[in-house]
């Protein structure tokens, strides 16, 4: 069954070893995050999937639910390359008076050399926590979103490339919406996942409390970290070696088209959703020790992938339920297909 994989320029390891290495990267990330954050394994899995799939994450949660810890531990799990000037983790608190240069960086006059030099903003990091993204003006939002989409910032008509490993975890508070600038839906579309964090259970909350006096960061600190190069290799591996069967692609397209045709929705998912879904599915397959995307991956990722890309026809429509309905149909089709010769 094993086919010879196309030879890679930078590596000629056998496929099994590559897959194992990528899985190992994901597992180390997961382990560190799980050590620091209790009761959020599903969220952790999605965040790791997003990091591997090179997609940004929007967290919808309440203050104090551990999102900063999540982002910080994720950032600090990435071992910076020696000599790199890119910080592993930066946090930007979005406020109404923020200006784009506050996050991208600004050109300043170096008094010593009398030359204009670019001072890098907080976006030059591996993991950026964009806290309460809906509190800032659309101008700043669009600067962030440009950086997310292009992996570059433009300041004074100068384009500065961001690091290849640039991962944004944005948060917004779903309740406190007074004086906010809600993200327009085309911008929401740029996030791979929107993850709604549910309150954790009593047992988990007890475990959080009983860890005192150790802090989350301390607990995670001892565990193995991930090198930037390893992460990039893992991304390449899942692009190259995780199989997305034609029937899965077909099923995804049909799922998106069915959502677009649903009368309860004003707008269905974009084609971009399909494009970004593939690496995410592959990353999840990898996390679960597979070299192929299974229907289970579609079911597990459909909601965080698609729900925020939909615009309901009525205010009280349950987007999750609508997606779930269509996904169940897709899963049934895939399950039936698998028994056919």
């Amino acid at each position, binding site marked *: 069954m094993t086919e010879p994989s196309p030879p890679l320029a930078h590596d000629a390891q056998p496929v099994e070893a590559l897959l194992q290495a990528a899985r190992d990267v994901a597992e180390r990330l997961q382990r560190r995050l799980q050590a620091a954050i209790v009761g959020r394994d599903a969220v952790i899995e999605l965040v790791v999937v997003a990091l591997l799939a090179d997609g940004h994450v929007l967290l919808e949660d309440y203050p104090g639910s551990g999102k900063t810890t999540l982002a910080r531990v994720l950032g600090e799990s990435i071992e910076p390359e020696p000599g790199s000037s890119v910080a592993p983790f930066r946090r930007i608190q979005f406020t109404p008076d923020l200006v784009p240069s506050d996050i991208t960086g600004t050109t300043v006059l170096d008094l010593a050399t009398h030359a204009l030099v670019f001072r890098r903003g907080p976006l030059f990091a591996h993991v950026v926590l964009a806290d309460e993204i809906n509190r800032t003006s659309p101008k700043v939002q669009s600067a962030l979103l440009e950086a997310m989409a292009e992996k570059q910032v433009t300041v004074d008509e100068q384009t500065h490339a961001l690091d290849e490993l640039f991962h944004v975890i944005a948060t917004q508070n779903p309740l406190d919406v007074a004086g906010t600038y809600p993200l327009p839906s085309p911008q929401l579309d740029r996030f791979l996942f929107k993850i709604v964090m549910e309150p954790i259970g009593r047992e988990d909350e007890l475990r959080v409390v009983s860890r005192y006096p150790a802090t989350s960061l301390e607990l995670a600190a001892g565990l193995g970290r991930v090198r930037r190069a390893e992460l990039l290799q893992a991304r390449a591996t899942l692009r190259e070696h995780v199989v997305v069967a034609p029937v899965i692609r077909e099923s995804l397209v049909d799922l998106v088209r069915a959502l677009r045709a649903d009368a309860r929705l004003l707008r269905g998912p974009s084609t971009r959703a399909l494009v970004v879904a593939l690496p995410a599915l592959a990353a999840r397959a990898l996390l679960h020790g597979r070299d*192929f995307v299974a229907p*289970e991956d579609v079911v597990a990722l459909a909601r965080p992938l698609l729900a925020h890309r939909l615009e309901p026809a009525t205010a009280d429509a349950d987007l999750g339920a609508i997606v779930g309905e269509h996904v169940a149909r897709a*899963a049934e089709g895939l399950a039936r297909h698998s028994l056919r010769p």
Partner: protein
Amino acid sequence: MRADRASRDESTTEPVWTTALRALVHVAAAAAFVGPTATVSGTVASSVGALAGVLVARKLASGPLRLPIVLALAATGLALAAGLHGVLSDAAWLARLTGPALALRIAEASLLLPATTAVCAALRVSSARVPVVGVIETVALVGATSSLLAAHRGGAIHRPFAIADPIRTAGGDPTFAIVLIGAIAVALSVLALVTEQRAGRALLHLGAIGALLASIVGTTRLLGPPSPPPSGEGLGLRGQGRESDAREGSDADREREQEDLAFRDEYRNEGAQAPVAVVLFHDEYEPPSGIYYFRQGAFSEYNGVRLVRTSRADVDQDVASGFPVRPYELRAAPASGAWRAQVRTTVGLLADHLRPFGLEAPVRLEPARNPDPRRFERVYRVHSAALLADATALLDAPAGSSDWSDAIRRYYLEGPADPRYRELAERIVREKLPASLRDRPFARAVAITSYLSEHGTYSLRSRHAGAPDPTAHFLFGDLTGYCVHFAHAAVFLMRSLGIPARVATGYAVAEEVRAGGSAVLLRGRDSHAWPEVHFEGAGWVVLDVQPRTALDGGAAPPDPELQRMLADLLRDERPLPPDPTWPAIARRLRRSAGGIARATTAAVALALVAMALVKAWRRLAPHWCAPASRPRLVYRAALDALSDVGWRRARGETREAFAQRLATQLPALVALTRVHLAAAFGSRVAPNDPRTLWRALRAQLRAAVPWWRRWLGTLLPWTFLRTR
């Protein structure tokens, strides 16, 4: 406006089956409403109209048109339909073109189709937009359906003809069908009402419906045909839902009977139209008075206020005390002879009665076969000695009987001590009779009844019950009352003159009600009390009072169709010639039954064998298949084995989730599923051999499921059909 929009959104998501249900209800209601008054094509037109109305409403309910505009459109549609109907009805060209019959049908359809469309659409849209109107819609639908069955009320089991006749012809009981139609209509309407509303409201409605159903279940008889509507207890003639087989009426019954013959200010006559009994005449008999009297009880003992049922054993022995279990003769019954002729009758009771009754003077009671126990409470045969003699023959007869002891004679003469009775009686005799007749008891009794008939006023409402002597209050007061008052007054007046008299109760029906048939139908309203006088040789003779003036309107005679039909039922005869269609079909079915049975058996056996072969193939195929398809086939065989014991993937569940669900009992299934999916979804990693996993899975299955369950599943050939 907001509510309007909200409900509009709600109706957007109305599932197709809800609309289908609504359409069914509306079509049925429209057909039921229009059917009795229109031709078949008209009924079809209105059904189509109702269907169109529901479909139009489905579109409109979620559309942008506001409700008043929709209603205005519906009204315009109605007006246009009426106009079109008017034009087409008068159009000579149409009749010339199509012939008059078709022209009539076209004109009818031109009214009915658009009218039902407009009405149904208006109802549906309003109830979809304004939830409260859902109730109105339901009421309208139920009303339309019940209009069809309205003719059935009052126990008229032969109505409506269109439903009852075919069923009776086929030998069934129309009551069942009519009740079934009503039940279906109610069930569908309830369903429509519940699906109309959101979850919260539906809960409320379900609660209300539950309470309603509970009250219905609590108050109606659910098994067997429904009993005729309650007709009251008459004058204590009928016990409500009570059996009294005892030959001797129990004390409680007697108590009640006396209670019921008491004077009441308002004699309520609910359900008076409901039939209570049918009497078949086996001998021709025309009563001299023109009225059939069916006596059930007699009241002769004076208790200081009124007459009650006797407490003595030696009087009123001609009154039957219990239903016949075997034939028995009544003691002290009058002999038939010159005075009386034997008349045989069969009585079928439709309502429960406390005691049997029989024509005039029953002599002998016999039990009879009940031809339809679902319909008749009880059937018995009565031999009566019915009076033939008229006034001239009785004129010379002495009152009382020579067989009576002095005590009995005194007993029958006991009455109030009030001297006014005697004074009035003597005045009546003086005024009414010529001197030559004044000493004849019969003439004196007739004088009294005719006096009461002339001066009395019949009314079911009166004001005598409160008086210490209600009879005196009636007689010397306004002379307005009902039969119990008149009977008592007559008896007390007669007794004051020394004529032995008593009050009898039962049913009285005018002879013309027979309408030439051989049966009379007794209804609740026919219950009656009348005075009787005993004459030497003739026995007890009915001398009734018939007030000339009546405050209460007379009632229509019973439906002759119903009377004939119930009589036929009692005779165990079909009133309509049996329809030859059904027996013919049944015969043909019987003749071909053997062939059909053999063919069916063969087909079933063949199908079972085919399924068993397919199942075996699916189970064994993994052993010799190509390696490429082995994971799939092994997995399919494993799923079949799970289907055998009833484990099955839910719809929409992924294969992995299914395996996880069973992971505690069958850990090997998880691995097997993985292997299968890897093969199905293009994994490039070399798979494990699924056959070792399959062996492990079988071992786990043996541990998890009892052997008989596994064997049973293996033996049933169709279990693989459940595999998904």
